[in-house]
C-alpha cells in the first residue's frame, strides 16, 4: 500500500512531466513555426494605385523577395487604394500578426491620417522591417515662366501651385517651403497624378507643381518644358544632377527633409514576433542588395535608397515633430 507521500510524489512527478512536455512542445512549436515561416502565401498591401512608385517597388519586392525567404512561398501584391493610404494602413493594422499580411506605408501620409482622422492606430505600432527606398519631392516650374530659381518665387504674389490633394504630403512639403521662404501662394488641387501636374504647368494652368523627383527628371527631359527649382534633400541626388536645381542646404532649410518625401516603409501588423521580423528584415536586406533588384532599378529608373527599421522609426519621430507646424 502506497503511502500518501508516495502518491503525492507520483502525482507531482506526473504533473511536472506534463508541464515540461507541454512547455517543450510549446517551445518546439514556436521554434518550429519560426523555422517554418513562411509556409503560406503572403499578402502584400500596396496603399496606392498601379503604376506609381509604391506599386512598382512593392511588385519588385514581391517578385524578388521570395528568393531570399527561408521557404518557397509567393508574395501576392494587392492594391488597397481608398483614402490615400488610410484603408491600407487600417487593413494591415487589423490583420493577424502572423506574418502573412505585410505591406508598405507612406510615413508622411500615414502620419497625416493619424492627425486628421479618427483612426484606430498609431503609426509607431506597426512592425517595421525596413524600406527599399523613399520618394524625393521636387518643386518644378515651366521653362516659360519667369521663375528660374527658387529665389524668384519670393516676392511673387499668389503663385498657383499644383498638387494632388490640398492636405496631402506633397502639399505639406510645399507649405513648409513656403513658410520657410515666406512665399505667397494658393493651391490648385485635384489632379490625378504628377503627369497631370506637369501637363498643367505646360498649359500654364499653374505656375509651379510639387511632384516626385523621378517623374520630374523624366519630365525635365521631355517635351513639356519643365524646370526643377528645389529638391527636398540636403544634397542634390544624382538623378537631378546638372539641372540647376537647388538643394535644401542651398536655401538653409535642411530640416524640411523630414517632410520632403515618403519612406516606403515595409511593415506588418503590430506585435509581430521578433523571430518573424528578423526573417523579414534579413530577406528585405538581401533583396535590396541583390543584383536583380539593382538591375530592376536601373531598367525602370527607380532609385534604391534603403532604410533600416531604426532609421524608419527615427524618421517617423522627426516628421511627427515637424508636421504640426506645417499641417494645413
Amino acid at each position, binding site marked *: 500500500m502506497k503511502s500518501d507521500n508516495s502518491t503525492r510524489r507520483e502525482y507531482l512527478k506526473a504533473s511536472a512531466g506534463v508541464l515540461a512536455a507541454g512547455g517543450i512542445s510549446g517551445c518546439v512549436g514556436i521554434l518550429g513555426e519560426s523555422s517554418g515561416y513562411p509556409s503560406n502565401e503572403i499578402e502584400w498591401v500596396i496603399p496606392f494605385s498601379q503604376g506609381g512608385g509604391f506599386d512598382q517597388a512593392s511588385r519588385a519586392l514581391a517578385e524578388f523577395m521570395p528568393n531570399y525567404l527561408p521557404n518557397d512561398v509567393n508574395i501576392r501584391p494587392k*492594391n488597397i487604394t481608398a483614402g490615400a493610404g488610410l484603408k491600407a494602413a487600417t487593413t494591415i493594422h487589423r490583420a493577424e500578426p502572423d506574418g502573412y499580411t505585410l505591406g508598405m506605408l507612406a510615413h508622411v501620409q500615414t502620419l497625416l491620417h493619424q492627425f486628421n482622422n479618427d483612426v484606430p492606430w498609431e503609426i509607431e505600432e506597426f512592425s517595421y522591417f525596413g524600406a527599399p527606398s523613399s520618394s524625393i519631392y521636387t518643386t518644378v516650374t515651366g521653362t516659360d515662366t519667369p521663375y528660374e530659381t527658387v529665389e524668384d518665387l519670393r516676392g511673387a504674389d499668389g503663385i498657383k501651385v499644383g498638387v494632388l490633394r490640398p492636405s496631402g504630403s506633397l502639399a505639406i512639403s510645399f507649405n513648409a517651403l513656403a513658410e520657410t521662404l515666406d512665399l505667397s501662394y494658393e493651391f490648385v*488641387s*485635384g489632379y*490625378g497624378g504628377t503627369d497631370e501636374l506637369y501637363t498643367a504647368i505646360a498649359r500654364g494652368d499653374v505656375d509651379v507643381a510639387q511632384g516626385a523627383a523621378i517623374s520630374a527628371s523624366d519630365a525635365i*527631359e*521631355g*517635351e513639356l518644358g519643365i524646370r526643377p527649382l528645389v529638391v527636398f534633400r540636403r544634397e542634390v541626388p544624382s538623378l537631378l544632377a546638372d539641372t540647376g536645381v537647388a538643394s535644401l542646404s542651398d536655401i538653409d532649410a535642411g530640416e524640411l527633409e523630414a517632410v520632403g518625401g515618403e519612406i516606403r516603409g515595409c511593415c506588418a501588423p503590430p506585435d509581430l514576433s521578433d523571430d518573424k521580423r528578423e526573417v523579414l528584415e534579413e530577406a528585405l536586406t538581401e533583396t535590396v542588395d541583390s543584383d536583380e533588384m539593382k538591375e530592376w532599378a536601373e531598367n525602370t529608373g527607380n532609385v534604391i535608397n534603403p532604410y533600416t527599421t531604426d532609421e524608419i522609426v527615427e524618421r517617423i519621430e522627426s516628421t511627427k515633430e515637424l508636421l504640426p507646424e506645417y499641417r494645413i
Partner: protein
Amino acid sequence: MVLVSTLFQALLTVLSWPVVGFVILGTLFGILFGAIPGIGGVIALTLLIPLTFDMNTVSALALFAATMGGVAFGGSVSAILVNTPGTPPNAATCFDGYPLARRGRGSEAISISATASALGAIVGIAVFYLTIPVARRIILSFAPPEFFWLSLLGLATIAIVTRGNALKGLISAGVGLLISFVGFDSITGTVRYGFGIDYLWDGVQLVPVFIGLFAIAEVIRLSTGEGTIASRGTVSTAGSRVRGIRQVLGRPRILLQSSLVGVLVGMVPGAGGTVSNFLSYVLAARTSNDSPPFGEGNPSGIIASEASNDAKDGGSLLPTVAFGLPGSAMAAVLLAGFELHGLNPGPELLSSNIFYVFVLLTSLVIANVLTSVLGLSLSPLLSKVTTVPSKLIAPAILVVSLEGAYVLRYSLGDVFVTILFGFLGYAIVALDYSRIAIALAIILGPLAEKYLYISLQISDSGLGILFERPLSLAIVAIAILLVVVPTAVSARSGLGRDDVSDWLQSKTGVDEPQATGDADGPEAEEETSEAGERGYLDRIVAGEGLSFDSLFAALVFGFVALLLAVTPAYPADASRLPYLVGVPTAVMSFALLVRTLRAEGSTVTRSVLATRRKHLLAAVWILVLFVLIGVAGFRLGTLLFLVAAYRLQANQDWSRTALLTGSVWTTTFLIFEVVLRV
C-alpha cells in the same frame, strides 16, 4: 522619308520570328482576357509586364500591343453571345450584337465585330501616325474646362437615350451620379456616403457594376429555363462570315465616322474609352437611316461600337507616348512597361527611339488583323454558345461573371455589389429605367466633378472659365447639336416618341411584357388569379397593392433622400455637386412615386406571374451562391452551387449534373488559376 523607312523596318521586325510569335501569343492572351467579364486589359498587362523582365524590348512591346488589340475584340464576343460586355467599352456592342445573336445570327455579328475592330484599329493607328508632328499642340489644347464639357457631352448622350422615357431616364442618371460620389473624395479628404462601411471608402467599382447590370441581369432572365439565347434554338452560320464582312464594307461612313470619334476621344487623356463608344453609337444612331432600328440587331450599331473601341487604342497611345500622359487605363499600365524596358515618353521616344513606337503600332495592327482572322474563323463555332439551353448556360455565366468580379481585388464586397447591381439591372430593365444612364453617370460623374473643381481653382473669373475658351464652346455646340436639333426637327415634323430612345430602351433583356400594373386585355381578365387565393409571396410577385413600379420608385426616392440627408455633414467642395444632382433627382423621383401610386390597380396575367416567380427564384439562387461562397470559399462554394443548380433547378440527372458541374468548374479553374493566374 526617315519616318517611312523606320516604319518599314519596324514592320519587317514585327513579322520576323520570334517577335511575330509574341504578337500571336499576346493576341490570344488578350482575347481571352477581354472575353471574361471583369478581367480585361488592365489586369492582362499588369500580369504580363513583370514576365517580360528578361525579354528584349521589341518582343515585349509586341506582346503588350498585341494584348491590347486582342482585349477589345475579346470583350465583344461575350457582349454579342451572352449580352455581357467583356470590358466596359464593349457595353454598347450588347445593344445590337446580342439581339442579332438572339435571331440566330451570332456568327454574323461576331464577323461584323471582327471586321470593324480591325479596320477601326487601322484608322486609329493611321491617325496617330499622321498627328505625331502636332501631338503637343493637340494634347495641350485640352484643359480642365474642356475635360469638364467632354464629361457633360457624355452625360448629354443620356438625354438622347432617355428622351422617350425622360423622367425615369433622368432619375437613372441622377442615381448613377450620386452613386459615383460614394467613397473617398481626394479633393477634400472626406469619405462621402460611406456609412461606416470600410468597403465603401473605395467607392463603387466600375467592373462589378457593369457585370451586375448586364451579366447578372441576363442570368436572371435566362433562368426562366425555357429555350436558348438564340430565340429559335438554331443559328445561321452558312455564309455568315462573308455577310458580316459585307455589312461592314457596305457602311464606310459609319465605319470611318465611328473610328474617328474613337481615336479623337481616345487622344484626350481621361475622357475614357467607354465614353467614346457610347458617343460613337449615339452618333451613328442619329445619322443612320438603315434597318432594322438600332437596338434590334442593326449591324451599324455593332460597327459603331467596335470600330470606335479599337480606334481609341491608337488615339490613347498618342498622349501616352508623347508625354507619358496615359490616354486610357490600359495605357497607364503600358507606361510601366515602357519604363521597365528603359523607354521614356517624350521627344526622345518620338525621335531617336521612334522605331519602338512603330513596333508598338505595327504590332497593334497585326494583332487586330489576327483577331479579325480568328474571329471570322471561329465565329460559327462561337455562335453555337447561343444554342445551349438557357438553363444549362445560366449557371456557367453566373459563376464566370462572379469570379471575374471577385478576382479584381479578391473582395467578397465586389461580389456582393455585382449581385446587387444585377438585381438593380433586372429591375431597371423591367420597369423601363435606363441601364445606360446609370452606367454612363457612374463613369462620368467623378470626371465632371474633378474637372469642374480644377477649373474653378485655376480661374480668375469663376464659372466664366467654362465659357471663355473656343474649344470649350465647340464642345458645348456639339452637345447642343446632338440633343436639341433633332428634338426641334422631330417636333416640327410632327413625329412622336424619339426613335433613338425607342431602340435603346427596347434592348431589354426581359421577355415578359412590361406589365407592372396594366391589364393585358379581355383574355387576361379570364386568366387573372383571385388575390385571396394566393399567399404572401404571390402577392409580392403579383405586385398587388404596391406595384413593382411603386415599390421601386419608393426605394429610389428613399435612397436619394438618405444621401441628401447626410450631405450637409460634408465640406462645401464635397457637397456642391451632390446637392446639384441630388435635389432635382429627389424631386423627380418623388414625382414619379406619386404618379405610380396614383396609377390604377393592376391585374396580372398567369404567364407574367409565372415568369416573375421564376425570376424571383433565380434571384434566390444567386443569393444562395453568394452565401455558399462566403461560407465555403470561392472554389468550394461555386462547386456546391453548380451541383445544386444543375440537379435541382435545371433538373438534370446525377450523371449529367456531374458532367456539367465538372466541365464548368474545371474550365473556370483552368482559366482563372492556370492560364490567367489571377
